[in-house]
């Protein structure tokens, strides 16, 4: 398996800057050889290397839950500020 996640999202006729970016991010999609953003979207190492989390089944779901929680905290803080402004 090879290629970069950026290869799928960048336009087919690329500008020099885009080609340069591709050059630096062209990596294999196994093990450690990921661009950093790729980790946000995919588990960084195959599941058999890591213990699963004690809840929600996968780490990806745990991360999603935490980001939803952050959104809720910010919304609650915003409403709190408005309520007592």
């Amino acid at each position, binding site marked *: 398996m090879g290629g970069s996640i950026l290869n799928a999202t960048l336009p087919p006729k690329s500008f020099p800057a885009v080609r340069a970016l591709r050059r630096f991010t062209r*990596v294999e999609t196994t093990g450690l050889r990921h661009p950093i*953003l790729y980790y946000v979207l995919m588990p960084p190492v195959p599941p058999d290397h890591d213990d699963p*989390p004690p809840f929600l089944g996968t780490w990806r779901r745990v991360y999603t839950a935490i*980001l939803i929680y*952050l959104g809720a905290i910010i919304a609650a803080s915003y409403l709190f500020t408005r309520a007592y402004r």
Partner: protein
Amino acid sequence: MRTLDWIVLVTSLVSIVAYGLYRSRGSDTVDRYLLAGRSMPWYAMALSIMATQASAITFISTTGQSYVDGMRFVQFYFGLPIAMVILSATVVPLFHHAKVYTAYEYLEKRFDGKTRTLASLIFLCQRGLSAGLTIYAPALVLSVILGWPERNTTLLMGVTVVSYTVLGGIKAVTWSDVQQMCIIFLGLLVSLITVIVLLPKTVSFGDAVFLAGAAGRLNAVTTNFDWNDRFNIWSGLLGGTFLFLSYFGCDQSQVQRYLTGKSVAQSRLSLLFNAVAKIPMQFFILFIGAMVFVFYLFIQPPLLFEHTELARIQGRIEYPAVADNYQRAFDRRKQATMALVDAHHQGNGAAVEREIGEYRQAQRQIDDARTQASQLVTRSGGGKDFSDTNYIFLSFVTKYLPVGIVGLVIAVIFAATMSASSGEINSLATVTVVDMYRRIRPGESDHHYVLASRVATLFWGAYAVLFAGWGKRLGPLIVAVNVVGSLFYGSLLGCFVLAFGFRKVGGTATFVGMLAGEAAIFWAFKFTNISWLWYNVIGCAVVVGTALAITYFSPASAATTRPHTPLPE
């Protein structure tokens, strides 16, 4: 401080230190002394991470920050959950599988020796300075309470922390952190309840929250974007994310915490616990500061909260006029506040608006009087940028909290400092020995390196004590400690971003990029008004941009690139 307070304080501290040392027995090898034999459970690491970050500065300065500026400081932590998720998914498994002692050890495997050395030096500079600030905060407490010179109290705290750290290693640090966080949570809860109980009988909790809001102290979220504004939602989300990525991903004082984990899952859980718990905790502490402000709407606060400076300016010829203005302004504000509460009870919107206007005018007079008093301090030989923010909460605690609780709150502050300082000094010693000394003198015995670690701990403890004297000149401590961090973190983060994300970039390009990043940060610090939260973004971007440019225009530099550190099977 009365006898009961002293009993509570001494019992708490002795039990914490004794428990930590008891749990640390057997720390006789480098692996056990520096990484606890990689045996720690997630909850111990989680509380230790939290305790290391929540030093005494958090309690002393954050409450004061809320008193003078409201709760908007909480936005600074909005980036933390994002950073924790990114780190849990990337850095944690990477470091665990690479089986490194320090984060910078990984850089030599990925790049080369000079990049590792530069990153280690940047960490040692930054964390050494911060360690001084961490010790200065409780020294401040002792000096206010006991009336001792700050120099003596700094020395006392430094000696205690260093001896404890030298003896116990990281296991002692971590287990005492667990106990300390329990005391901290208890102390916070008791403080808030006590503040609310101390409010006048006619003022309910709902009224207190209303008053805090009317006074602009519940401004938890501000959405306006301004490069020069330190705390708004944008700087918190973006700048905060970068700062916490750097702090938890590149700062050995935090990395070392989760490297002690039994497994990747345990280390991840410890970080994610902080992602969930940190914002509510900070919100809670800031809310205490806002309630202290409401308390002082009814009880006259001192003109300056730092009583030694106040005593000094009382002999000045200008003082009586300033004090008189302050007294009149306070009376006016108190009257407006009482009228505001009445109007609020009656649901009279027009009267509420009118009294808020009256309140604000009185508040401006109070602010003016305090500014004049600060200028008097400066003119009478005090610090150039005098600020008494760090004294507000302590002044309240020692003057108004009941006997026993004062001792508990002081114990909280001491416990937090001991854990934060010992963690910092321990990590400084680790980097010194693992990233510097062991490379100069390889092949020595395990016992030799443990001894070297203890000597390094002693050295960094002394360094921190010497630097602590500088802390007073930096204004609010909670801001100062983060400013110091932001001067260095951006470059470290950029280096690790290159290590993890750009495999074609080599050691030389990264090394030059880091130097350029540091130059850019210090330029922004010295010559612009850009808020310090953005330094991390600027530093990281310059490091990555410079290294990419060098690699692109000089492909030969990539020849020094090493393959990614393989995962050990």
